[in-house]
């Protein structure tokens, strides 16, 4: 028995020899364990890493901005691609379906690049800002998982939506439309989940005890989350519309056939329309966001609107002004070129609208504190001009923004009605009522704006500004259906001719896209900079060597760089996306010999002009605008 017991012992207890070996190994490995533990402790204590020469903040600035712009495009395009598809399905017009498909083609090629930049951004953030990321991960981990799920779903649906386009036609179209709806639903989720992380950094709330999901939800529901969500959602549509417009503009310049020229002229129009359509409510969303920021934290609000970032809003006014002018210019050129003989008829209304736009822009761009030399400041009695200084405050800005929206909307209505004659018996009355309403609305907006100087700020913010917005919305919501009903029975007096637009119309579309990218880069910087030296405002201080706000000139250079890089990226993506088109066209369709000569000084368009004698040609391939 004893023997048996001892026989089992070695399997349970180490022998002396084994113990000796173990001890030896332990002695050898002990320093290694210690080193590993040191390394782990050291890794845990690293708060920042840097990229020498470039600077961590600069790298993050560029990558984050590129990701955001690409994401804006990728999330904005499905909205109107789906609407276009829906219109095509309801109206039975194949061109809307083709347009929706072309929009989606751009989307699929941009999607992978967006994800790539997202991945790069994540790695860089983990590597360069480990402390911040550890903090955010601790709070938001459940929403990280939700984001991954949404991304997977979005990717799957996008593949099905794109590759199933031709298969799911006819009776299966409803399945495709459902996929389009789901695509937008997941896209919305993909946008609002990361928005919660970024807005928590700007307007953090107290995250109490609770489960991981409860904590994440509490942090998500912060004061600026929904204002940013709404603002970005609309801005993405604007960005997507203008980028698609620019794409159409470039394709229009490069068009080799009449059909192509017609198509891209129309696509450019749709892109511009979508951009304008989104741009109309965007200032309202921006105003709401600023109001929430002010209410959340007075310091942050003042830093943005009255402090060192205030000059950005003068630049913003200039960019928005150029965008409004560009969009209207394109509409007006559309009336002149696409509706032959209408130039003289609409000359006066266009001039009136242009003057109103310019006066409004002048007011919007007038700063509260003027840039003045010592001599000039002495003559003015300070940097506030006694008369024009009143243009510098919010009441004036809100008023002119509303008027510019109103004018742009009327520009669109005029374009819609151009070349048509209303036949409804009540058309005259309806037009008179619309005219009267427009005048009353304009006067009311101005009166409220002037009155706003004489009431407490809270009355202006809560009632007058809201009333101005409601007046403009009322005009838009009543005029649009009324005009639609009028146009339904209207007879076409001058058919709209596509493919006739001059070269500068395409440049105008490209300029609009560049302006909107620049604008988003500008306001992205403003939003991020408003946190000043905080990673998470008032909670986690930035203790890196970059805990200072860069000078505005330096920031402006980065915004320009970001815009340039994004334009390069977009050009590359679209070039890749359309590479296959040329191969599919074949020599007969793609040949320049097919190009008609009847173009107004623009064939071959990209060269900047054709002989003026080419103007006399009669355009073929006309379409009636609907």
């Amino acid at each position, binding site marked *: 028995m004893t023997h048996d017991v001892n026989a089992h012992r070695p399997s349970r207890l180490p022998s002396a020899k084994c113990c000796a070996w173990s001890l030896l190994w332990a002695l050898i490995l002990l320093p290694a364990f210690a080193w590993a533990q040191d390394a782990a402790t050291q890794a845990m204590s690293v708060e920042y890493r840097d990229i020498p020469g470039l600077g961590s903040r600069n790298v993050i600035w560029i990558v984050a901005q590129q990701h955001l712009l690409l994401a804006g495009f990728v999330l904005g395009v499905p909205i109107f691609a789906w609407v276009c598809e829906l219109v095509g399905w309801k109206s039975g017009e194949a061109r809307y379906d083709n347009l929706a498909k072309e929009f989606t083609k751009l989307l699929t090629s941009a999607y992978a690049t967006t994800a790539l930049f997202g991945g790069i951004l994540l790695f860089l953030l983990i590597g360069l800002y480990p402390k911040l990321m550890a903090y955010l991960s601790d709070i938001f981990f459940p929403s990280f998982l939700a984001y991954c799920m949404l991304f997977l779903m979005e990717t799957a649906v996008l593949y099905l939506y794109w590759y199933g386009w031709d298969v799911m036609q006819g009776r299966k179209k409803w399945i495709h439309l459902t996929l389009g709806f789901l695509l937008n639903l997941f896209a919305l989720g993909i946008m609002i989940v990361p928005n919660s992380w970024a807005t928590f950094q700007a307007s953090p709330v107290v995250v109490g005890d609770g489960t991981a999901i409860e904590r994440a939800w509490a942090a998500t529901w912060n004061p600026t989350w929904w204002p940013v969500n709404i603002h970005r959602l609309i801005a993405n549509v604007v960005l997507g519309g203008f980028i698609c417009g620019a794409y159409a503009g470039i394709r229009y310049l490069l068009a080799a056939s009449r059909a192509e020229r017609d198509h891209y002229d129309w696509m450019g129009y749709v892109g511009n329309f979508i951009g304008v359509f989104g741009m109309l409510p965007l200032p309202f969303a921006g105003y709401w966001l600023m109001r929430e920021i002010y209410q959340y934290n007075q310091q942050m609000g*003042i830093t943005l609107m009255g402090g060192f970032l205030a000059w950005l809003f003068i630049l913003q006014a200039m960019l928005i002004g150029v965008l409004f002018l560009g969009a209207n210019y394109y509409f007006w050129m559309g009336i002149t070129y696409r509706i032959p003989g209408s130039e003289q008829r609409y000359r006066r209304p266009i001039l009136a609208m242009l003057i109103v736009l310019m006066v409004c822009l002048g007011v919007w761009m007038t700063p509260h*504190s003027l840039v003045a030399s010592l001599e000039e400041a002495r003559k003015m009695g300070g940097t506030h001009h006694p*008369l024009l200084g009143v243009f510098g405050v919010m009441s004036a800005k809100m008023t002119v923004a509303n008027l510019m929206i109103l004018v742009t909307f009327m520009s669109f209505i005029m374009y819609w009605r151009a070349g048509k004659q209303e036949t409804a018996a009540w058309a005259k009355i309806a037009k008179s009522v619309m005219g009267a309403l427009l005048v009353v609305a304009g006067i009311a907006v101005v009166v409220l704006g002037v009155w706003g100087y004489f009431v407490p700020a809270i009355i202006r913010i809560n009632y007058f500004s809201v009333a101005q917005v409601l007046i403009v919305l009322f005009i838009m919501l009543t005029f649009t259906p009324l005009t639609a009903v009028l146009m339904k029975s209207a007879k076409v007096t001058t058919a709209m001719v596509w493919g006739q637009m001059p070269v500068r119309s395409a440049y105008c579309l490209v300029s609009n896209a560049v302006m909107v990218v620049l604008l988003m880069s500008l306001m992205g910087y403003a939003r991020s900079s408003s946190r000043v030296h905080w990673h998470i405002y008032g909670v986690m201080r930035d203790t890196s060597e970059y805990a200072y706000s860069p000078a505005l000139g330096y920031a402006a250079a980065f915004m320009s760089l970001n815009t340039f890089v994004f334009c390069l990226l977009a050009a590359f993506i679209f070039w890749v996306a359309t590479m296959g088109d040329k191969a599919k066209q074949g020599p007969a369709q793609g040949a320049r010999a097919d190009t008609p000569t009847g173009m107004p000084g623009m064939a071959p368009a990209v060269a900047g002009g054709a002989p003026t004698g080419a103007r006399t040609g009669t355009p073929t391939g006309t379409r009636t605008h609907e």
Partner: protein
Amino acid sequence: MTMKNPLAKTAVLLAGMYVFLTWILPLFTAPLPASLIYLYLALTVAAAAIFYTMSGAGLDDFMGPIGRFLTGEGHAGATGTARLVVFALFPLLVGWQTYAKLAPSDMPPAENRTIHPAPPGEFVGLANPFPRTPGNIATGQGLYAAYCSPCHGGNFDGKGPASVGFNPPPANFSDPGTIAQLQESYLFWRIKKGGVGLPVEGMPWKSAMPRWEKELTDERIWKIIMGEYAGAGQSPRTWEEEE
């Protein structure tokens, strides 16, 4: 005789705008700084360019003379000589402008001052702890008359007897662009800490505002604020409506 050439019309419009902004408007108010005049002139040029280039014919009318001037087409004799003179003078003009901008001068550069920097955290969200009673307002206005009116004026318009000595001048409280845009806590900070208490944000600072915390108690400062708003006929920015 009506003017047909869009370019000539634009030139006349531009000249008219310049005359109006530089000489006529200052007859009724203070002169405008050059930055604002150039901004409005740029908008005028943009408006003309947009309007005249909406159609092909308009573009030719607007740009045609410029193109012909540059290429020399149709410019013979005296106009040809004038063209060459312009070509010779233009670089000189650019050179002179460059020299004028870069040459050393004893004039300080144009101001780009941040008027309203963000207040420090400890002043954010403070509310006036004293009720807005006639008695408190009267006390505040009395204190204002004693401590503030020499600079900010008895009429709250920034035109006190000492105001002429300051550049920039003291704030005009009756202007809806000053205290009416701010919360009471902001004024409390500015009065208490004065010019020397301003943050580095937006330096360099130019403010002769005394640091009143040495002379005035918090209670007095709050009452002065109340008196200022009442006297200037303004209301502070709030997030709640007063009942």
